[in-house]
């Protein structure tokens, strides 16, 4: 079998892994070496499904001793099997990288012989790339569940990011669908990596030349909608992973029916909207200061399909709004639908030098159409009129907004302005 056929088989088997991030590491290029890493990451292309291609995402092999129900490479499937040698992978990676096709390598694998044997193959490949080819670009490598602590430790110095897939959101589902993997075989390396990443980061602060251990952190992935867990279960797990394990990313992958199996749902289309809502909620957990119980609860365990979780929260907490754009804390600005992280930062930055108008907000990239219902500008409230939201805003709310009116000209005459010149 020639390289190109192998590539097609092993890329085809790797495509269900979601991660393509190449961000989080900054490494300067040096004379006589190839490659660097940029902090923001770079997308090199976009596949027909609209997903970014940033890394050469391939399996070492699709031969596997495990029989996970949801996986296309499970032992019991009758598919063509093949295996890359470390040299072949290194050669392709370098060839692609030099042509600026990719930002680096994402290496995963089926399990040959044993988890440790597979990990040894990874280490061999990475050493070849880092030492022989002096490759300085981005490398993300999967940790095989059940791999020994020593091998996890070794590979951390060769890669930019490590990840071990949690696969399914609960122990029961894992036992049912991935009988060869135990929760411990996943959690143990995850905890070890969390510890080592933290430790070497501290070292680095003290000693400039101490080695980097997976400098871009660790991530994981779970399959959505193959098992009965609710969004509440999923988000609580994610929150735990972010807060306790210090994960950089949790990826969600809407289940795509690749196998016919009695234990799996036979839904013809992947649940993309649910996946999308989970990502939105995930962002709220990581960047917007929300707790999972604010987004979903035991009594409302599913995310709304119609509203994004942030709007949903806002509509249920109307007494929190409107907030004044010129004085609200950054954390409160983040809660306004239509104001994202960047916009909130810009508001805080720009309001120090100038009084912001509605036009200014628009220019800064705020979605004013949405935000207007939740903010006041210099005490003036412009939302709520002739829109659906008007009915959602309580009378008391509107009254308060009117009272804060600075522009007395078109303030309803019935309302006595409560703000006087003394202010």
């Amino acid at each position, binding site marked *: 079998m020639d390289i190109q056929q192998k590539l097609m088989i092993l890329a085809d088997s790797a495509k269900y892994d979601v991660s393509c991030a190449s961000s989080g590491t900054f490494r300067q*290029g040096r004379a006589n070496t190839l490659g660097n890493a940029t902090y923001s990451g770079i997308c090199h292309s976009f596949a027909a499904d609209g*997903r970014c291609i940033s890394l050469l995402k391939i399996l070492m092999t699709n031969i596997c001793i495990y029989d996970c129900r949801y996986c296309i490479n499970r032992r019991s499937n009758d598919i063509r099997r093949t295996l890359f040698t470390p040299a072949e992978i290194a050669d392709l990676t370098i060839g692609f990288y*030099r042509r600026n*096709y990719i930002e680096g390598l994402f290496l995963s694998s089926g399990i040959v012989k044993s988890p440790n044997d597979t990990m040894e193959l990874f280490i061999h490949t990475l050493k070849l790339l880092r030492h022989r080819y002096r490759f300085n670009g981005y490398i993300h490598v999967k940790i095989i569940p059940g791999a020994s602590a020593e091998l996890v430790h070794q590979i951390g110095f060769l890669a930019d990011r490590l990840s071990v897939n949690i696969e399914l959101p609960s122990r029961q589902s894992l036992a049912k669908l991935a009988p060869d993997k135990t929760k411990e075989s996943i959690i143990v390396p995850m905890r070890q990596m969390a510890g080592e990443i933290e430790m070497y980061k501290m070292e680095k602060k003290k000693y400039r030349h101490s080695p980097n251990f997976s400098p871009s952190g660790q991530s994981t992935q779970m399959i959505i909608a193959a098992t009965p867990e609710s969004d509440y279960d999923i988000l609580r797990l994610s929150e735990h992973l972010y807060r306790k394990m210090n994960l950089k990313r949790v990826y969600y992958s809407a289940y795509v029916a690749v196998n016919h199996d009695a234990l799996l749902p036979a839904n013809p289309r992947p649940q993309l909207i649910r996946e999308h809502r989970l990502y939105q909620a995930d962002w709220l957990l990581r960047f917007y200061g929300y707790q999972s119980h604010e987004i979903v609860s035991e009594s409302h365990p599913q995310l709304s399909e119609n509203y994004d979780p942030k709007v949903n929260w806002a509509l249920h907490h109307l007494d929190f709004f409107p907030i004044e754009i010129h004085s609200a804390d950054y954390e409160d600005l983040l809660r306004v639908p239509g104001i994202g992280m960047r916009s909130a930062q810009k508001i805080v930055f720009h309001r120090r030098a100038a009084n*912001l108008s509605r036009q200014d907000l628009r220019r800064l990239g705020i979605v004013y159409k949405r935000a207007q219902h939740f903010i006041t500008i210099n005490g003036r409230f412009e939302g709520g009129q002739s829109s659906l939201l008007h009915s959602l805003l309580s009378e008391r709310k509107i009254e308060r907004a009117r009272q804060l009116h600075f522009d007395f000209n078109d303030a309803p005459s019935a309302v006595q302005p409560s703000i006087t010149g003394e202010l």
Partner: protein
Amino acid sequence: MAIYSYDGTFMGLMSLIGFLEDKQINPVAICDKNDLVTDLFEEQEDIKTDEKRARELIGRIVDHICEPAFDRIVYGFLSQINGFEMAIFNYLHLGLTAGENVERLAGDRRVAPLRRLSLRVGREVHRLKGFVRFAQLADGVYYAQIRPDHDVLPLLAPHFVQRFADQHWVLHDLNRSRAAMYDTHQCEIVILAAADSLCFAENESHFRDSWRRYFQTIAIAERKNRRLQQQFMPRRYWPYLTEMAERVR
């Protein structure tokens, strides 16, 4: 009040704006003297490039405004979009009195136009960092063609100098017939006309075909979304993307 012209170079524009600031003149328009058309109603004056005056102004920008302001001006200059000179002049005119606060006045009409231009250039540079495709020629040099909207070579070249420190490469802007050339020691931008035909290295087709096959394989058929693809990767880049171009150039 008059129309002022300069020689089209960045230093030329800096000299001109330095001159206007010194003399406290508000110009009607600023333009490249090569594009100047005789105007019957306005006075015209050409200002010669004065390296010393230009450097003085740049020093003032960095010291009295801030370094990001200087970057913004450079990006605005490289946009080469009609009216960029006045956008830079207005921004600087305010900046030299307002100091670093000028960066906090995104909504101001003297600031907003330059911001818009520089953001456009910044976006194109970032996109091209991903979308440039090199092909190895028979003599071992990696060669890439682009047709950017803006004059991004000076911003793009340092990225590839970092990245491909150990290889010879040429990045060719076909729209402007200029190229950044790097020989593992030095990078320079030279005038270069498009070649009639290129002679590729022996294994070039292997990598090119491998990449195309990889590109086709990696998409998940059940999630096909061509619109999303095109939104992230606009059509105008396709002719120079190995994986999207119909045939080999």
